[in-house]
C-alpha cells in the first residue's frame, strides 16, 4: 500500500530540467573569458610598402613626400621643415605636453596637402619615412599616426645610414 502511494506521488510531480551542469559550464566559460580578456584592446596603424613591381615601372606622376626622423626623435618634412620636436619619453599621458608632442599638426597638414594633390592627379600618394637606427619606435608610430590621419597608407620605410 505504501509503495503504491509513493509511486503515485512521483508521477504527479512536474518534470524539471536539470540545469545545474549547464550553469557550471557557463560559469567556467565566464571565468575563462574574464581572465583572458584585456579590456584595453590593441589598435592598429596600417601601412603598405610600395612593391618592387611599382618601383620598376615608370616613376610616379607625383614626387613622394619625405619624412626624416632623427635619433633624438625630431621630425623633418622634405628634409628641411621641422614638424616635430625631440622625443621626451618622460611626458605623461593625458597632459597637454604629451598631446603636443605626439600630435604633429604641421606634419598632418603637409600630408593632407600631399594627399589632395595626389587625388587631383588621380594617383596614390607615397611617402618615404627615413628613421635613424636609434630613433625610438614610439616616434615612428607618431609619424604613422599622422600618415593615418591624412589617409596615406603607401609608405616606404628606410633606415638612415650610420655616419
Amino acid at each position, binding site marked *: 500500500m505504501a509503495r503504491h502511494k509513493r509511486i503515485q506521488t512521483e508521477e504527479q510531480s512536474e518534470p524539471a530540467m536539470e*540545469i545545474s551542469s549547464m*550553469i557550471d559550464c*557557463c*560559469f567556467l*566559460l*565566464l571565468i575563462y*573569458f*574574464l581572465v*583572458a*580578456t*584585456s*579590456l*584595453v*584592446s*590593441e*589598435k*592598429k*596603424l*596600417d*601601412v*603598405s*610598402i610600395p*612593391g618592387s613591381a611599382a618601383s620598376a615601372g615608370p616613376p610616379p606622376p607625383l614626387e613622394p613626400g619625405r619624412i626624416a*626622423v632623427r635619433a633624438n626623435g625630431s621630425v623633418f618634412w622634405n628634409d628641411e621643415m621641422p614638424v616635430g620636436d625631440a622625443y621626451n*619619453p618622460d611626458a605623461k*599621458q*593625458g597632459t597637454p605636453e*604629451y*598631446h603636443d608632442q*605626439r*600630435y604633429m599638426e604641421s606634419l598632418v597638414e603637409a600630408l593632407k596637402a600631399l594627399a589632395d594633390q595626389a587625388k587631383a592627379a588621380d594617383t596614390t600618394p607615397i611617402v618615404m619615412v627615413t*628613421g*635613424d*637606427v*636609434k*630613433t*625610438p*619606435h*614610439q616616434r*615612428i*608610430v*607618431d609619424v*604613422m*599616426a*599622422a600618415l*593615418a*590621419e591624412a589617409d596615406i597608407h603607401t609608405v616606404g*620605410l*628606410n*633606415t638612415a645610414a650610420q655616419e
Partner: protein
Amino acid sequence: MGKKNARQVEEVSGEPNMSPMIDCCFLLLIFFVVNASQITVSKDPSVRMPAAVSCSELKDAKGCVVVNVFTEPEKMTGNALKKYKENYPPGTIWGVSDGSKNIGYAKGQEQQLTEFISKQKEFFKSKNMDEKMIRLYLRGDQDAPWEYSSGAIRCAAAAGVTNIVFGTLPSR
C-alpha cells in the same frame, strides 16, 4: 479556506529564484566573448606598446604574422624583464610564437626570421587566404630602436609580406 492559500504561498516562496542570476551570468559571458581579443596568444607582456593619437580598431587578426620587437633588457623592469628572461634566450630582439612555443631571434638571425615569416605566409595561403590579407603585425616596444623594427620589416619584405600593421594602444 483563505488560511490554506496563505500557507501554500509561504511554502512556494522558500526556493530561491535562480533565473535572474543565470540571465546576468549569460550577459556577462556574452560581453566577455565579444571583447576577447583574437590575438591574445601572441601578446607578449615584455613589450610596452606605443600609443598613437589616431589609430583604428583591430577587428580581425586573421592572416597576421605577429612579431614582437623588444627593447634592450636594461630598459625593461619588473614583470616584463622576468617574462623576457623566462621565455627567450639572451640577446633576443624579435620574439615570435609558432602556437606551441616562443621563439627568439637575435641580431644576425635575420635569415631565420625571414624563413619563419615565409612559413607562416605559406600556412595562411594553404588555408585559402587572400595574399593581401597576410600582414606583418609588428608589436614594437615603445623604446625599441628603429634599427630593430626596420629589421623585422625587411625580413617580412624579403618573405613577400608587404602589408605592415603597427600595433599600438589608444592615446588618452
